[in-house]
């Protein structure tokens, strides 16, 4: 249950389920995200996503009106899919339900089966569907559920084994994904990164408006997931639904290794260990060197950070990863908060801080910013770590905010923010130290020019 003592929600620290699904679908080549519901939801989510990525985000909607809400949205769903086929030339349509269509009881899988039969004479796209009512879950459930739907609905048969690795990266930035792909390439393995928004949500300026942005996981690579040596699934938070990795393991015996989002040395080591285990290759020198430099930076910077108290908030996997990182550099995470609820939040926080902190940070789930702020006033933090929505609270508390994750819509370049691996950790470490230095400088009457 929620850790909030209140009935009402004030400034939520979460987003709704279909948003996560729409973004995940955006990470598949030739796919168009399609929300089965009324028009407003899709438009609001587009707006929200655009303000972070500063990229076009076309989400189709079945645009249900009053009549359809009463008599069922089937006809609009079918017509909508035909429309995105003809105008967008989508090869994959990712259908996510909304609160409305879940409540009126539209049976989307059945409607889609009907659709496939009715229009069997047309070259139909792959249609993947996922159930995403926001009254049970957050955008992260939506992301993971859509990823699982892609794996369970598109990977249909066991393909002959290949030197291939599946990576389920979790909800990380395009910059993170590009780095992940670089690592996989350096290990000399073929890879399926699912989903992959590294190109679709961070595009160059072009001659033309792309109906479907180039990039994204290729359909063939998704199908080949059954041929992989194993799956590395990033993100420690456990949700109830079967994950993509678990699904592939159950159906095709593809070994599934769960690690955290690799931020910080220990979590990144675990990620590289998994890679080494599956690929049978040792860590390339390049990464050993990145790791060594990161350790060196830790040493050079530790005194600036020693004993600083941080409040971390946001989506659960990112919070757990940031806590793991902060704990190992001597920053004390005093509160880890998320608007979501998952089965193992507290336990995961305890695991990643074990033997680093005398006790894990206080963990709170299902809370909003009102709850977080209320508690923060007693905690006297030195900084906040999380997405943009905490800005006003940080300002009120008079402490700096270190922006990570999504959404970052009061700064430029959220899509280029690197969090993961030794390189991402290095970037975050520098950012943290510099944030502290800047504050020190601002607070100093002398205004030291050497720090």
């Amino acid at each position, binding site marked *: 249950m929620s850790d909030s003592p209140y009935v009402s929600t004030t400034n939520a620290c979460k*987003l709704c389920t279909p948003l996560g699904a729409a973004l995940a679908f955006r990470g598949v080549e030739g796919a168009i995200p399609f929300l089965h519901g009324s028009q407003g939801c899709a438009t609001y989510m587009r707006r929200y996503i655009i303000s972070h990525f500063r990229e076009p985000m076309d989400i189709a909607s079945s645009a249900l009106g009053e009549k*359809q809400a009463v008599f069922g949205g089937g006809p609009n769903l079918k017509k909508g899919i035909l429309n995105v086929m003809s105008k967008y030339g989508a090869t994959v349509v990712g259908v996510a339900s909304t*609160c409305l269509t879940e409540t009126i009881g539209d049976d989307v899988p059945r409607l889609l089966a009907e659709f496939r039969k009715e229009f069997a004479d047309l070259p139909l796209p792959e249609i993947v569907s996922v159930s995403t009512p926001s009254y049970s879950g957050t955008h992260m459930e939506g992301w993971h559920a859509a990823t699982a739907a892609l794996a369970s609905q598109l990977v249909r048969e066991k393909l002959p084994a290949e030197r291939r690795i599946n990576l389920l990266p979790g909800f990380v930035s395009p910059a993170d994904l590009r780095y992940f792909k670089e690592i996989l390439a350096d290990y000399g393995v073929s890879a399926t990164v699912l989903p992959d928004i590294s190109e679709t949500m961070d595009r160059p300026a072009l001659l033309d408006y792309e109906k479907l942005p180039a990039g994204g996981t290729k359909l063939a690579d998704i199908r080949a997931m059954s041929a992989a040596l194993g799956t590395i699934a990033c993100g420690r938070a456990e949700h109830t639904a079967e994950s993509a990795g678990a699904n592939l393991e159950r159906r095709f015996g593809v070994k599934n290794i769960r690690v955290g989002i690799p931020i910080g040395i220990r979590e990144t080591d675990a990620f590289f260990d998994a890679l080494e285990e599956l690929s049978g290759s040792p860590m390339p020198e390049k990464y050993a060197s990145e790791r060594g430099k990161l350790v060196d930076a830790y040493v050079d910077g530790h005194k600036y950070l020693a004993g600083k108290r941080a409040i971390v908030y946001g989506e659960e996997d990112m919070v757990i990863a940031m806590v793991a990182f902060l704990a190992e550099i001597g920053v004390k995470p005093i509160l880890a908060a998320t608007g979501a609820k998952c089965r193992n939040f507290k336990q995961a926080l305890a695991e990643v801080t074990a033997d680093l902190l005398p006790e894990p940070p206080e963990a709170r789930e299902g809370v909003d910013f009102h709850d977080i702020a209320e508690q923060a006033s007693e905690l006297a933090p030195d900084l906040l770590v999380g997405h943009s929505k905490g800005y006003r609270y940080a300002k009120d508390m008079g402490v700096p905010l270190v922006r990570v994750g999504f959404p970052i819509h009061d700064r430029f370049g959220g899509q280029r923010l690197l969090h993961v691996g030794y390189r991402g950790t290095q970037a975050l470490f520098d950012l943290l130290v510099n944030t502290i230095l800047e504050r020190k400088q601002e607070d100093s009457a002398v205004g030291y020019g050497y720090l």
Partner: protein
Amino acid sequence: MEEAIFEERRDQIHRTGEGPFALACNRDSLAGAVSQRACVFCGSRVVLYPIADALHLVHGPIGCAVYTWDIRGALSSGPQLHRLSFSTDLQEKDVIFGGEKKLKAALLELIARYKPNAAFVYATCIVGIIGDDVGAVCRDVAATTGIPVIPVQSEGFKGNKREGYAAACKAMFRLAGTGDTAGISPVSVNILGDFNLAGEIWIIREYFRRMGVEVVANITGDGRVADIQRCHGAALNVVQCSGSTMELAQMMQERFGTPFLRVSYLGIEDMADSLYAVADHFKDRDPGIVERTQDLVREELANLLPKLKQYRKDLEGKKVAVYVGGAFKAFSLIKAFRHLGMKVVLVGSQTGTKEDYEELAAICDPGTVIVDDSNPLELSKYVKELDVDLFVGGVKERPIAHKLGVGFCDHNHERKEALEGFVGMLNFAKEVHASATSPIWRFVPRREAMAKANATTVARRAAGGEGL
């Protein structure tokens, strides 16, 4: 050829000068067409949101509230309650057993915490489906707390933004006429349909002050519940943007006999005309008002026009696409661009009416494309085809323009620059100029390709080749 256009939408697009004017509008958005439109709830939220001392509680699952958290630039000179995002965050069991109990508890909790002067409860899609009696809960809570608690019937699927405006007007109309009107000047107005984006209503209020007009209520920018309660004491309603608060003005005319004037504060003529119209309305009651208004306009223009001229030099002949929420704003924009020497070649809105579009067609240059309820495919098609230099729209249109290497100017509710009034015209010109003349455009692939094509032609001509 025109593969970007959906067959079903052909009659929602018109090119002026090509055949008699007929444009279909006010239709449901086409499924699968990626409309730029939002929903009924969005319309209500836009209008009511700036009432700063009211509690705005969104009754539904979390999304609707979270996506509207402080996204607008409506400023308040006092309370900031409107900038928080309140929701009942309905969970599965509420959906099954009904959300009334949760709504009531949430309202009581929030009213006790924030002591607002009124509360608005927005019904979202799902509330319409599960059938919560929002009205009954509101009555109940109003009786316990002693403040007005007003349901806003804004279930998203019951139409588009326009219906949301109507729902908002109905909600506000329940406040109007409930306050004391003693001491209100006979030369007084309510400002309707301005949302105080980036402090714009303060500019307009200052003009009215200089004219000697009392402003009773801001509806709704920098709005206060008590002012709206006594707004029926004002002698005149000035209504900006016909889309959003026209209905309130009409209801007030019927019930209280308050006359109204349609105005616009965008651009030079529209701003001046609006002030003159108000002065004209009061000239019998206050004979000096016309002269004071003339002085005001003269002063402002003397300051503005020379500055505009400088910008115009660089902007002359550039082409603009305008795609906005309400059509009314588009009129003013077309005129404003003429002052900058620029030409609007595409104009459209999410929610225009037949009359709006007819009027638009009448003031547009021949060949202008007019669109209703458009989408990224159409908009990008026309941006290329018409070779637009600048796009005016909202957040969702920005990446369309930017991807095609076209300048963009934010003219919706999220803008952080005041664009109204004479000073707003200057800000607008500055922004347009800054974008349209930036050196960055030469690096954009489309411009590079065009420059290359040009260079080849020039070279060919110089060599005495074809094309001479």
